[in-house]
Every structure is written in structure tokens, then in C-alpha cells.
């Protein structure tokens, strides 16, 4: 009985906190240029939201929300966004990661184009960092087993 009460408190609180943490991580990412924040910090907070899910509930519940295999794909997609933005600048004729040339593709002037370029690479960083932090945590929690540990818990 005591166990249930503990679970109820934690699970209710986490049900309130987790979406809030995710939105907050997006806020931290988006305001990285004018307040402490940015891609890495946002990614860590987003990963922390998922880790809270694992701690409050069960590994199985968390796995249903976020599959193991998608982590690798997210990591690769994040790096693609980063290096891809730089590559697009290369293809458009300027140096690598020279965002001012993006003004030819986006409907803004070169100065604002640098601003948008930075936002895009920060997005890539956030996705990758979230995927990797969660992957490290899941590796440690399942002691390298992943799917096998889930079957043991059954």
C-alpha cells in the first residue's frame, strides 16, 4: 500500500512536469542568442525529461514512447542538419558555414540570414545531444542489454 502511494505522488508530478520540461527545453534552445542557453543546454533538458519518465514510471513505458532504434536515427539526423547547413552554404558558393549566402535561399538580408543559419545548426545540435544523452543513460540502465533486460523484467 505504501508503495502505491509513493508511485501515485511521483507519477502524478511527473505527468505534470515532463511536458513542461520539454517545452522549457525548446524555449532555452530558441533563446540561446540572448540569454543563457542554446543547443546543448536545450538538448540536455529534453533528455532529462525522458530520463524523468524512466525514473518515475517503468523502462517499458519509456521505451513505448521512444524506441531504442530511433535514437540512432535522431543522432544522425541532428548531425546532418548541422553539417548539411554548412554544406548548403558550400554549394551556394561561399565558404563552409558562411550563413550570409543563405540569403539567396531564405527571404531575408545577409545579416538576418546568419541569425537563421545559427538557429538551424543549434537545432541540429539539440537533436543530437538529446539522442546521445538518452542513449548513454539507457546503456547504463540496461547494463548494455537493451531488449534483453526488458524481457527479464517480464
Amino acid at each position, binding site marked *: 500500500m505504501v508503495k502505491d502511494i509513493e508511485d501515485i505522488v511521483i507519477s502524478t508530478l511527473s505527468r505534470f512536469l515532463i511536458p513542461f520540461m520539454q517545452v522549457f527545453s525548446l524555449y532555452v534552445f530558441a533563446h540561446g542568442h540572448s540569454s543563457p542557453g542554446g543547443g546543448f543546454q536545450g538538448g540536455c533538458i529534453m533528455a532529462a525529461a525522458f530520463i524523468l519518465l524512466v525514473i518515475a514510471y517503468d523502462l517499458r513505458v519509456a521505451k513505448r514512447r521512444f524506441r531504442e532504434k530511433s535514437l540512432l536515427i535522431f543522432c544522425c539526423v541532428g548531425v546532418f542538419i548541422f553539417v548539411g547547413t554548412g554544406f548548403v552554404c*558550400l554549394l551556394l558558393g561561399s565558404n563552409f558555414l558562411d550563413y550570409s549566402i543563405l540569403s539567396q535561399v531564405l527571404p531575408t538580408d545577409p545579416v538576418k540570414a546568419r541569425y537563421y543559419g545559427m538557429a538551424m545548426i543549434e537545432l541540429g545540435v539539440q537533436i543530437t545531444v538529446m539522442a546521445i544523452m538518452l542513449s548513454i543513460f539507457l546503456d547504463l540502465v540496461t547494463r548494455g542489454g537493451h531488449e534483453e533486460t526488458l524481457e527479464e523484467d517480464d
Partner: protein
Amino acid sequence: MISEQFPALIVVTPLILSLFIPVVGWWKRKLCLPIVLAALSVCMISAVGLLNMVQQHGVIHYRLGGWAPPWGIEYMVDHLNALVLITISFVAILITIYSKDSVEQEFPEHKIPTFYTLFLLNITGLLGITITADIFNLYVLLEIASFSAYAIIAMGDRGAAFASFRYVIFGTIGACFYLLGVGHLYIVTGSLNMLNLAELLPNLYYSKVVLVGFAFILLGIGIKMAFFPLHTWLPDAYTYAPSAVSALIAPLMTKVGAYAMIRVMFTVFEPNFSIGLFPITSILGWLAAAAILFGSIMALAQKDFKRMLCFVIIAEIGYIVIGIAVANRTGLTGAILHIVNDVFMMACLFSVAGAIIYKTGIRDIYQFRYLHRKMPFTMAILVIGALSVVGVPPLCGFFSKWYLILGAFEAKNWIFVVVLLISTLINAILFFRVIEIAYLEPREPGHAHAHAHNTGNPEGIKREEAPLSMLIPMFIIAAGIILIGVFSGEIIARVIKFAIPATL
């Protein structure tokens, strides 16, 4: 137009394609190797293009993001850079082709995409270290190369995980010391660009902060390149690693560390700082002499072929640093030529070791008997590599040793000359022992019978040569050793002569 972007392409292409491989590898496993080859061919083309451009136009500066240094990161290519870039790309392509069979034997199917991802990331890091002109960017790329090395070495068997853990601890200490040194330099100058530092630092040579920063940077790079007292991670890590991994990482990582040392000592700091102002080159010289003797003597004591080669690497790094330490043009020529030569020689020897393990599983030297009947071509390539390490003309090892000994003569440092000659002798004993066991068969019929009981009937030993995808890269590397030896004069006159700083 695209040739202007070569400095960026040579680093970005393997980076982006290395993260393609896990995604593609799930879908179709056969496509992993072609993607790696495609990335490395782009790198090779860029490296050759860069050397051409450097010879025509002089030093190339490339600004990332269009920002001028010291606000932005800059990539700089000069003769020294271009030579090392071509060497790395060339050997990397050959080892990739070589790795196909041994990887399929050693790893289960689902791990192969991960292997190639780490492989390509390691090469990205190495190429980036070579081309960058920003000392903090060098730290980042050094860590990229090191992480992929830690992970890929741990994929081996037996003691690989523990050896890799030791390498993690050591390598992190090294990188953190390097970061500390960079911090010291940044505090006093406020700049992180190598050329900008070269302008700002000479006024500050009297300050202790700069000296401490320099010492920390050299310590960090010394750990990464396995310089004598800091070498203890190397034998275990490279012995237990998978064969394709040793063949890739063993030639390249330590030599790129040696290149970084030359960069820091002669581009960031003036040559006069290490030679005249502080007795740094004499300290490095004594440590290098100790490294050569230690490496050669410990190699004599090993029974495992790969472990013996690891100690030979430690001795070879000693050669390069002795070339830096004698502090004249001849010595530095020998050191830079030895970087190129050693990449080829070690690639040759480690790939032979990997081929022998792939085909027969033999690691112990004393079981090499009758191998020249089983794998004649592999043994021939072993002979070429061994003779080059010993220093027999016209193979490449002779020319770099010649310049090193001449440099030691010019500096009137007779002890270094003696050390170099003794180590040549010990290398000769080392490799001729292996060649004798592999090639010469006992004469008396009684002995032949006794050995025939152990290793099979000598007349009945069939040819079980290594597969073609392993043989052809090894042939090309061996041919490279011969050609580089024959054309050493050309290489020195056209490229290395311009790579040495003018004030030396």
C-alpha cells in the same frame, strides 16, 4: 571554383558520410564499404588538389564561416600539411580495401556499420588535425580522432576492453593537458589562431605563463603520440585491437601527433624559442634517444608479432623527435621524411600481421615456420617492410635514417649518432629473426621430421595465400615504400625543403 573549397571538403565529406553509414547500413549492409571508399576518394582528390595549389600559389588560407582570424577558425595548408594529408588519405583508402575480409571474419553482421562509422570518424579527426590552424580546433579534432580510436579498439577480443579503458584514461589526461596549455596561451595573448599567436608571442617569451603553456601543450601531444615515458598505453591498445583497426590507427595516430608537435614548435613558437632561449630541444633529444633504445630493446623481448611492432612504433617516434631535436635543416628534413616513411612502413607491417592472423590465426613469431610456403606474397611484403625499417637502400627507410644521422653529425652530437646506429643494428636483429624463422627451413631430415610432426609435412603445405582484397593494398603499400625511397630526392627538393621554417 570547387578547388577553393578543398580544405573544407576534405574534412566535411568523411564527417557527413560517416553518419550516413548507420542509416544506410540498416537498410543494405553491402553499401557501407562503398560509402567509405567514396568519402576517402573525395579526400584523396582534395589532398592532391591542395598540394598542387600550394606548389603553385603558396600557402592557402581558408576561413570557416567567412570570419577573419582571430575571430574565426582558419584552415591553413602549406607544404608540410599537404604532404601529410596526401599520406593519410592514400594509406586510409588502401587500408579500407584491406579491411573488408578481416572485418567480416571478426565481427558479427550487425556491428559492421558501426565499425565503418567509427573508422571514417577517426580519419575525419586525423585529417582535421592536419589541416587546422586554430589551436582550440585542434583539441576538438584530436578528441574526435581519439574517441573513435577508443571505441574501435575496444571492439577487439581478449584484453581489448581493458586496454581501451587504459587508453581512455591516458588519452584524456593528454588532451586535458593540451587544453590547459591552450588556456595559458589564450590568457596572455587573447588569440587562438596559430599565425596570430606567432605574431603576438615573441614579445612574451620572457613570461613564465608562456613557458608553462608550451610545456603543457608538448606534454599533451607527447601522450597522444606515445613519446617515451608516456607510451605505456600503446602496446596493449594496439596489440588487442582488431587487425583492420591496428592497420589503420597504428601508422596514423602517432604520426599525426608528431606533425602537431612540429606545428606547435616551429609555427606557433619560433624555432629560436625551443633551441636558443630554453634547452627544450636537448631535453627532447635525450628523451628521444631513450625512446629509441627502449623501443628497440623491448621489441627484442616480445614473442607476439604485433606487440613487437608496437615497440618498433615507439622507437620510430623516437627517430622523428631526434630529427626535431638536433635543430638543423638536415635533421628536420629527416624527421618530416620519416613521418611519411613510417606511415607506409607501419601500414605495411601491421597489414601483414593482420593477414597472417586472418589466414592462420598465428600471433607468435616462433610459429611462423613454413609460412613462406603458405603465404609467399605476404612474406615477400613483410621482407620489404622489414628491410625498410632496418634501413636498406633503395627502400625509403634508408633515406630518412641517412638524413637523421647526417643531422646528428652536423649538430656534433655523437651520442645521437651512436644511438641511431645501435638501434639500426637492433632492428636488423629483430627483423632478421622473424625472416629467418619464416623463410629458412632446417636442413637435417631428423629435424625436418620433428618439425613436420608439429606443423605438418613441409612438402605437403599448400598455398593458402591471403585473399586478393588484402593482397592488392599490401602490394601497393610495398610498391609505395620502394617508390618513395627511389624518389626521395624529388620529394625533398619539391616539398620538404619548403616545409622547413626559414629561420632554422
